């Protein structure tokens, strides 16, 4: 055991002193920071050139409405609702909309479209709108269309705003035309508030706790972040083990090592060292996230009861995938060979990422239960299910722990058999069949 401890400490110190570790430590915060920062930066880099657009109003009634509404909108720009006041600085700015009326005179439709299109191409206009003559008539069969033309269809704000403005006006005019009170119609057609909540429960002291208001952050974001964090930590730590063994084989250190410690002690030391490294990573990651949430006053979103489970599943995942990657590293002598053997193992790591959405939507469906009980998927998927408000029943959790614990022991045992033979093997990587024969050997 002393040898295992010494190898583990050696591995831990080796890893945390390496540049790769510092990079992986900073990778998550840097990537998250970059993603948010770049989005905010890009959001602020909006082209603020006023969007000047021509309106060919064949009804003769809509242009003025559009012009008035645009003026009011432009005057309101920069204002944010009270609820979003805190986010004012990060909200993207909006450009002014400037409608200009265009008189088609006696041009035919084709000539009109062509002329205005040329003006858009010359950047005199951003877009143009042709309003059909009978848009106000609900019974009209033709000419009821409003056409929008632009060279930049990806800018959605303008056509959406025009569509909304015209439709509001049309609705008002049509209702009034039918002798109905628009205000009354709006009042009568108003929907009811839909209050989404969880479930009420009885607390241990007999009190009834009312159902809490559903919180999108807690129902989707917390499970997703928990699972992603676990996935990232496994992906960062486990392949390090493979590289470490490969490096020892390629640098011809392996034989000296196995003369000092048994292959099993060496492997266990490496696995425990890896758990220590990933523990440091998660300590840093979780600490950063909790720190950020605390500073933002959002600490209530932290599911404290899940932190312990997070570490339990992290250790299990690392022992499972760590031993698989160690076995692969020991069996190969070149990175290229290891990468091809690594592929099936990577599929096992990635599968939970492909099925998480249906599981989080129906955490108690047979699919969700079965998938989260398959040992290689259990750490990530059970973590995901645990983090959903519905939680997981005790028997599922117990069964998952037994199955995954058993699978973990099997992985370590099988990997130690491969490791024992592979660590001193040189030359071409063994086939999968040969690896199985190493496991079966005495």
């Amino acid at each position, binding site marked *: 055991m*002393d*040898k295992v401890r*010494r*190898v583990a*400490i*050696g591995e831990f110190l*080796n890893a945390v002193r*390496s540049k790769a570790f510092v990079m992986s430590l900073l990778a998550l915060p840097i990537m998250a920071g970059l993603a948010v920062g770049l989005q905010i930066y890009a959001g602020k880099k909006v082209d603020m050139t006023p969007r000047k657009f021509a309106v060919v109003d064949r009804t003769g009634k809509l242009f003025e409405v559009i012009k008035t509404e645009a003026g009011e909108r432009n005057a309101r720009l920069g204002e944010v609702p009270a609820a979003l006041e805190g986010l004012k600085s990060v909200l993207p700015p909006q450009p002014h909309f400037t409608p200009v009326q265009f008189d088609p005179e006696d041009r035919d439709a084709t000539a009109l479209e062509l002329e205005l299109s040329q003006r858009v191409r010359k950047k005199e206009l951003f877009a143009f709108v042709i309003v059909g003559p009978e848009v106000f008539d609900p019974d009209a069969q033709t000419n009821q269309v409003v056409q929008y033309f632009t060279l930049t269809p990806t800018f959605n704000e303008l056509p959406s705003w025009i569509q909304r403005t015209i439709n509001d006006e049309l609705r008002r005019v049509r209702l009034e035309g039918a002798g109905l009170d628009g205000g009354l119609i709006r009042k009568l057609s108003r929907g009811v508030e839909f209050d989404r909540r969880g479930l009420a429960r009885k607390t241990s002291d007999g009190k009834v706790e009312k159902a809490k208001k559903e919180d999108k952050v807690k129902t989707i974001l917390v499970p997703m972040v928990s699972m992603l964090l676990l996935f990232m930590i496994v992906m960062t730590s486990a392949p390090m083990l493979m590289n470490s063994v490969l*490096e*020892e084989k390629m*640098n*011809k*250190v392996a*034989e*000296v*090592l*196995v*003369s*000092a*410690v*048994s292959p099993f002690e060496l492997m266990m030391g490496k696995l425990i060292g890896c758990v220590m490294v990933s523990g440091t990573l998660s300590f840093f990651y979780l600490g950063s996230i909790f720190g950020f949430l605390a500073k933002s006053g959002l600490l209530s979103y932290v599911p404290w009861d899940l932190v312990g489970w997070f570490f339990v599943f992290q250790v299990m995942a690392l022992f499972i995938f760590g031993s698989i990657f160690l076995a692969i590293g020991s069996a190969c002598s070149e990175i290229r060979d290891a990468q091809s053997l690594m592929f099936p193992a990577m599929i096992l790591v990635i599968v939970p990422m492909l099925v998480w959405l249906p599981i989080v939507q129906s955490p108690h469906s047979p699919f969700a239960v079965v998938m989260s009980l398959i040992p290689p998927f259990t750490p990530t998927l059970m973590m995901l299910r645990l983090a959903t408000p519905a939680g997981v029943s005790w028997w599922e959790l117990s069964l998952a722990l037994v199955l995954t614990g058993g699978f973990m022991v099997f992985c370590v045992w099988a990997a130690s058999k491969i490791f024992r033979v592979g660590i*001193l093997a040189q030359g071409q990587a063994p086939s999968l069949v040969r690896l199985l024969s190493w496991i079966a050997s005495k």
Partner: protein
Amino acid sequence: MNEAGLPRGFGWKGFAKQVEYFRIAIPSHAGKGLVRPMNVLPPSLENVTRPVSTALAVRLSGVTKTFGKQVAVDDLSLEVPEGSIYGFIGPNGSGKTTTIRMILHIFHPDSGAVEVLGERSTRSANDRIGYLPEERGLYKKQTVRRALGYFAALKGMGRALAKSEMERWLERMELTEHGDKKIESLSKGMAQKIQFVSAVIAKPRLLILDEPFSGLDPVNMEVIREAILDLRRQGTTVIFSTHDMGVAEKMCDRIFMIFKGRKVLDGDLKGIKAAYGTNVYHISGDGDLGFLDSLAGVEHVRDLGQVREVRYAGDSQVLLKELTSRVRVRHFEIASPSLHDIFVRIAGPQAAEVTHG
């Protein structure tokens, strides 16, 4: 290498120290066909001289190891006395490394027993063994001190003792100022010295060195050689696996040769040479000696530069007479066979290509 293409100390001068000039007494078995069929151990050679010391560092008893259908080591028994330098020789693939790995309990024998420093069939003694494999390396990204500290820790050494031993060895190897440099920044010679230090830092009682001098320049080779001899003087047993017959002859008290998994030589050098007879002659003379190959009884001629080494199955007086009848003989010496010669006789001419002796 000297002018004759031989390693230093194994040329003419080296020979001069080892042979008895114009030894007149001809052994009784001379001329009776000393050369035995290839690969057959002469009855007198199996443990020519039994270890004097009763304390054994290593005892292998009837050890066999197979890999699939291939027998790597076949029924091998060997006793390495404490405090000796024991040379393991044999061509590539003969079973040397497998034997060493069994001594280190990296491999377990299929049958037989391995006892090392009094521990039978366990790894308990491994902390007292230093090992320098032929295929060796270090963690390139680590500094010298960190790498050595790690190897010392794996051997169960306390931090303080490891530090003092590390500094002592670094000073001896003249590497103190390089202690905080990364291994990858060292020259090949420096790295090899660090590898040697990693094997001896934990004060081993048994030191196993597989080709310790390969790739070393003469200066560094001498530094390592002196260190090995010092360790032996302090009581360390050294097992020395090498292809370099010159080094084996100069350094080893005893020689063990393995060929195709079987022991074919085991004993002290003097005894081995005596058992292999005195049918080797070193000859030089004025004129063309090309006729030597065609003489009856001549089995092998090797040009050593200054002299020809001739293996002759016959009466030395007959050979001398034949020579004097053809050329003016300048030098005629009845010599002990070199280890190289014995090695080649056992392993066949193809083995000569992998030896340096």
